[in-house]
């Protein structure tokens, strides 16, 4: 498996996710203005370096509305370059795609630095994928490129393992009441479904335990090589699409989906170890 080829497969869902996220940022731009929740006048007070440091004027120039929208537009342009490289698969587009990943990484880190609140796991996985892609597409040497992609896969497995372990030690997850509570909210659930689960506590418990088992099992399943990776990807795709539909976390399918080609590469390497 050629690392560049795998990186470009990762780039496809990643570029779509970045595009959706950047368009959402531009659509809700009023929140970034001074009357919005993420107005810079208030946000700057949270970081001394933004108020009085030597870089404060430079940060203010980039972070004040409407200049901050440039970070969204830069991501849109970079995502278009990545998407084109992933579709055309021409060797000449590898380096521009790598720089596009760097632009996305830089723009997102600046946005996270500015906004600091309101991030979710999908945003965090975007940084992981952008870092891995930038290195895999820009640095020479197959081994170094493979390590960068393995990093993406390892973070995916770590995310599932930690999420699973955190749920396994939690009494509310083990009892099934966690999913009833989450589903009963409007923000992350469907209250009618939450009510249905309250009436069917066994089903709620089974759902909680299936999430715990699948998340904890991913790190073990990968030891089976490619068949294990396919099982993780099948369960993961179903899980993240369901989460997007039910909980509205629409960045997860794209950011986690972008890691799956890297997981196949890692599984392939593990498979060769057994032979």
């Amino acid at each position, binding site marked *: 498996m050629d690392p560049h080829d795998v990186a470009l497969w990762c780039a496809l869902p990643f570029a779509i996710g970045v595009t*959706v996220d950047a368009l*959402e*940022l531009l659509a*809700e731009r009023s*929140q970034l203005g*001074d*009357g*919005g*929740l*993420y*107005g810079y006048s*208030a*946000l700057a*007070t949270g*970081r001394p370096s933004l108020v009085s440091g030597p870089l404060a004027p430079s940060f203010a120039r980039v972070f004040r509305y409407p200049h901050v929208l440039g970070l969204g537009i830069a991501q849109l342009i970079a995502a278009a370059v990545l998407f084109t490289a992933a579709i055309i698969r021409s060797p000449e587009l590898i380096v521009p795609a790598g720089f596009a990943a760097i632009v996305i990484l830089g723009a997102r*880190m600046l946005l*996270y*630095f500015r906004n600091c*609140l*309101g991030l*979710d*796991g999908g*945003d*965090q996985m975007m940084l*992981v994928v952008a*870092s*891995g892609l930038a*290195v895999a597409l820009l*640095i020479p*040497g197959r*081994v*170094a490129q493979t*390590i*960068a992609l393995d*990093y993406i896969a*390892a*973070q995916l497995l*770590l995310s599932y393992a*930690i*999420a699973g372990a*955190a749920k396994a*030690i*939690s009494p*509310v*997850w083990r009892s099934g009441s*966690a999913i009833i*509570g*989450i589903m*009963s*909210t*409007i923000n*992350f*659930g469907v*209250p*009618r479904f939450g*009510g249905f689960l309250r009436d069917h506590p066994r089903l709620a418990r089974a759902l909680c335990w299936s999430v715990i088992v699948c998340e904890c099992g991913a790190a073990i399943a990968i030891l089976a090589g490619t068949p294990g990776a396919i099982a993780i990807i099948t369960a993961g795709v179903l899980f993240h*699409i369901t989460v997007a*539909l039910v909980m*509205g976390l*629409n960045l997860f399918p794209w950011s986690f989906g972008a890691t799956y080609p890297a997981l196949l590469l890692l599984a392939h390497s593990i498979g060769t170890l057994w032979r």
Partner: protein
Amino acid sequence: MSGWTIASAVTFSTLLAVTTVTQARRFRFTRWLKGRDACAYIPRWTFFAPTPLVSDIRVLWREQLTDGSVSPWREILPPIGGLRRAVWNPGRRARKGIIDCGPVIVRLMARESTSPLSPISLPYLMVLQHVAGLPGCTLSVARQFTVVATQGADEDDGPVHILCVSDWHRQPGVSSDALHRPDRPEADREMSGIPG
């Protein structure tokens, strides 16, 4: 083995090790490290665990007019359900901002309940700035917000738990003598007007 390979291996294994170590929040070292992660580069992978949020954190606001009368409570960024948000969910980040800010404001206000001043913190200022900037009555002299928790759909008319009520804050350009400052208990009694 090339220099690129060594650099790549060292960098990424360090990042993985740091990610693993920083997942447990109870250690001082991990809190110190996360405190310095200004760009949220080190991920936290616990996703709704061990204790998930099982209620909707919401912020309501009202305004005091020049004659001292007070408007009904209105909600900023009410939660929205539906299948469309699986594909297009532009309000996601702002609503998550409310979910992140609300509990911090509540905690700080509970801790500093004896102080006559509102606790100044970044989440408080974020919400206050937003409330002050919302379109309202031209006769508005001051605004106030409250953080509440609800569970279930709004049509179900479930209980509304009032978590905290802010002080009245003068609108920009309004002099301090224009503000009628109702006693705190009176302000709290008026909470019965909260939609829910």
